[in-house]
């Protein structure tokens, strides 16, 4: 029997160079490139995954549409309706080695929610392979996400660690909020 299919638009959020594009590339293509190439405009990537159905016994096929956008704030407000319309979840990305990138997630979430409403957010602290350059104390990370009620994880687009769990996590969080 074919699985029930749900389509989900998930918007990536986070400052420039935190690894939004790299996380997608790792998850969808299992590839990583050390070179930094700033994203211009919008990139959409689609990925299907089978997940447990929080509202039933049969698993679901989630067709996830990942919207990857520029991390710079230059024209973000002007483009927010274009980017965020219809978004059902936010994957909020911070960089373990840059403290400001965690704090910046609040503004990203505010901007997205001003268009898409109070949609679920999942946090990910990327570049977990750079533990020696950590700028975000573990306790600060935990309290940041706990205070906001965002599930979260560490990940490394470079090594692949935590990446699959992150994307499954946001999907489950969105589906769970609808159940």
């Amino acid at each position, binding site marked *: 029997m074919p699985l029930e299919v749900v389509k989900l638009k998930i918007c990536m959020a986070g400052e*420039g*160079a935190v690894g939004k594009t790299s996380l997608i590339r790792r998850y969808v293509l299992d590839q990583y490139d050390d070179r930094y190439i700033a994203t*211009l405009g919008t990139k959409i990537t689609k990925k299907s995954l089978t997940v447990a159905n929080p509202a039933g016994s049969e698993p679901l096929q989630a067709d996830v549409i990942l919207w990857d956008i520029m991390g*710079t704030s*230059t024209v973000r407000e002007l483009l927010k309706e*274009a980017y965020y*319309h219809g978004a059902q979840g936010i994957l909020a990305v911070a960089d373990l080695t840059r403290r400001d990138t965690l704090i910046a997630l609040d503004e990203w979430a505010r901007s997205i929610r001003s268009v898409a409403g109070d949609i679920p957010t999942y946090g990910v602290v990327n570049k977990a392979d750079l533990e020696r350059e950590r700028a975000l104390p573990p306790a600060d990370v935990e309290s940041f996400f706990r205070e906001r009620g965002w599930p979260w994880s560490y990940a490394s687009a470079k090594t692949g660690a935590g990446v699959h769990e992150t994307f499954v996590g946001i999907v489950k969080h969105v589906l769970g909020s609808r159940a």
Partner: protein
Amino acid sequence: MHGPHPGGVPLAIERPDTASLVRQRLMANADDVDALFVLAALRAQEGYLEEGLTILDHVLRIDPRYPGAWRFKAKLHGMQGEAAAEQSARRRAEEMER
């Protein structure tokens, strides 16, 4: 911004500003849709809405399904008080999103 360094000391990664990046990309390829989309936004932000719309129309000729382009077009028409054009662009956006 910082990146990895063999000695453990973070290096600053120079990220070009958006306008410079757009210029570089368009010099390499005048039909770079991503760069054109952002150029449309930059021009609109500077107050040149008509020019932004012209560039956006070029984006949509190259790629009628460019993500967000129809919705952005609707926004710019709305900012110009062009209700009919705004509605038309919004309808196209909704068709693309199905």
